[in-house]
């Protein structure tokens, strides 16, 4: 499935290409019940979010979260639902970064893991999706 593949590709790419002195040994594919639970929730949610990424309503932020980029691209009755999806996704992403750091026995790596994920989510995003560049400006891939 496209959704699962996107998420998985991101994670594998991270594991293979993870760089940085302190993080060289981080196992980003580490699997714990917490990480498995988060990934499964995120994959299911991605099915609901994919259309909003494609329409440009939702974009990938430079800090490894997602944000409402253009509310006007969402029909009015669905706007609150999108807000809720974004909030839930960001909660899960924050928990994912924290759990990966924790599972590696290095809780202090959380912000580095978040920064690396942020880059990779953007690299693995599909053409047409929006992301924030280093200056925080929305850019269409």
């Amino acid at each position: 499935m496209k959704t699962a593949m996107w998420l998985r590709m991101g994670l594998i790419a991270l594991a293979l290409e993870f760089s940085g002195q302190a993080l060289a040994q981080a196992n980003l594919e580490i699997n714990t019940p917490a990480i498995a639970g988060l990934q499964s929730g995120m994959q299911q949610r991605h099915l609901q979010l994919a259309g909003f990424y494609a329409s440009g309503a939702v974009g990938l932020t430079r800090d490894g979260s997602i944000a409402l980029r253009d509310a006007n691209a969402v029909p009015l009755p669905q706007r609150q639902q999108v807000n809720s999806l974004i909030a839930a996704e960001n909660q899960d992403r924050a928990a994912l970064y924290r759990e990966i750091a924790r599972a590696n026995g290095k809780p202090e790596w959380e912000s580095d893991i978040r920064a690396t994920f942020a880059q990779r989510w953007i690299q693995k995003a599909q053409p047409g999706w929006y992301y924030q560049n280093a200056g925080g400006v929305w850019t269409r891939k």
Partner: protein
Amino acid sequence: MLRTGIRVLAVLLSCGAAPVLAQQIHLTLDDLEAPGFSVKALKASLQGKDRRGLVLDIGTFSIGERSWRNARLLCADLRFESAQIDCAAGTIDIGEKIPLSFSYSGANNTLDVVLRPAARESWQLQARFGQPAAMFKVIVDNGRLARLASWLPATLPQPAAGTLKGVMTYSGSGTASAQLLIEELAFSDASGLHAGEKIRAGVEIRAEHKSGRWQWQSRLEWMAGGVFWQPLFVSGAGQVLNAAGVLNAQQINIERGRFVVAGAGDIDFSAAYDRAAGRVAEASIKTTDIDIAALYEKLLKPALQATVLGDLRWDGRADIALEVKDGAVAGADLVLKRVSVEDKGRRFALFGLEGSVPWQRDRLTMARIKMTGGELLRVPLGAVDLPLELRGMRLRARRLEIPVLDGRISIGDFDASGEGPEWHWRFSGNIAPISMERLTSSLGVPVMRGTLSAVIPTVSYQQSTLKVDGALLFRVFDGDITARNLALESPLGRVPRLTADVDMRNLDLDLLTRAYSFGNMTGRVDARISGLELVNWQPVQFDARIVSSAGDYPRKISQAAVQNISALGGAGAATAIQRSFLRFFEQFGYEKLGLGCKLRNNVCEMSGIEDAPQGFVIIKGGGIPAISVIGYNRQVDWRELVDRLKRITQDNVRAIVK
């Protein structure tokens, strides 16, 4: 009052020796002024053949607080006769060129201007100046509402589409009115979080100017379309808003407002809006006997989608009142009348709620809510009487008794307070014996016998972590369970994390094994789980050990139980029993049983009562007939172990028949 006049300033331009002919006429017109309307620095020239070509430069043109500078009006064929000026086809350039026609009658002191910015769109001003008072009438047909965007404060959502049809009047003697029909209105703010679309609404306003202020009344009927005002989405379906009040330079007062929500009830309100501060200084909202089901369906449900409150069935009515002071909620009153609420997924339900909850930001109030019954995870709850002390963002309940099946949960000294979005609370309590048989049947889990009772020491919740100070004591399976160091991080988050140390003493194996169709065992066991950590309710690590309790009591194990215990390491015992005369016995004696599991990284390191050659003893036989079970696999994958418990398949445990 409006002053007007025309003076001819210059008439002549010479053209050499030719007969003197006026080729251009320059005119300076007096300023036109009326309340909310002014035209200043007017310069006109008449050019061309017969001097019928008008060029009118308007220095400043103001309506209300909006002004245009350097507007230019052109009319190729101006008719100018004594006190009558007519232009059948001109244009006005105010940044956008708009076709217009106008007619001014000095005799009647009237001005008629028609702007036609687009096909089928017209904005007509009919003005009559002079005594006793100036009169203005604006007739709009198919007027594009987007044109009004620049008239509105930038902080308000801006109209992007839609049309306006109707009549607005204003008299210098102090009356104003409007009857308008809005169609296909779309508006939004920059964030898109306050927006509307496809709105069809009728507006009627009447106002009278008296003693330096406007007294007004209005009626808005919202016939169709939707509005999203985060987090609420509401569809127009005949709701009517009636309001009346006073407008002066400082405030807009709504003295009597009523919002009629078809099928739900009426919401009455009043408010004072401070124009200078740009905020609601005071407001009061009150609704009596509102149908909660309709209110939920029409207003709250779309905002609660994907939450635990997103799919509820409501019944009953309520009175709700809110007081706003200085831009913040200062008081609220809620009266519940036979209210019932039920989660359609049957996770929870509260029936027959009655009571009153008065709340004031700055003083202590007493609330009382009664409930005739309820349900939590299909477990029935009895009648509850809940007195509450409220003060600002703090609430306390000294005692709360919740009957659960044949027992009850008592909660004492519940104290909750909130700072911003963060809430923290604490309580202590106990659970009076609840039948495990009835409880497990209700929960839909394997039926267990015995009773559940507990002493709950102080439980606190702070910074997303729930902690139990002291030991949590349960009595189940005729034994005692003590949980210490119990903490639960993010109980409502995606990844709840529970840590605890658990001690179990003297559990009755007969009650325990009957619960899980494990095959019957008699006897008693002690168990200790140290360093238990569950993430997402899955074990991540623990050191667990279960052993026969000390003391004298019957110790029997059924053939089925032997097979199932063996299955923790393999299914060899079943074959061994079936091959021997022991197959004729339903039960065996044993002396002691013991099994340990140290879980790390998804691997359970197993141990028994004592070591055996190449293995460890799980059950040591005793009596006649007796049976022993020995495990051989010390390293077992946790998930595999759980699967084995479920499916009983492997064969690396062998029963030794004595």
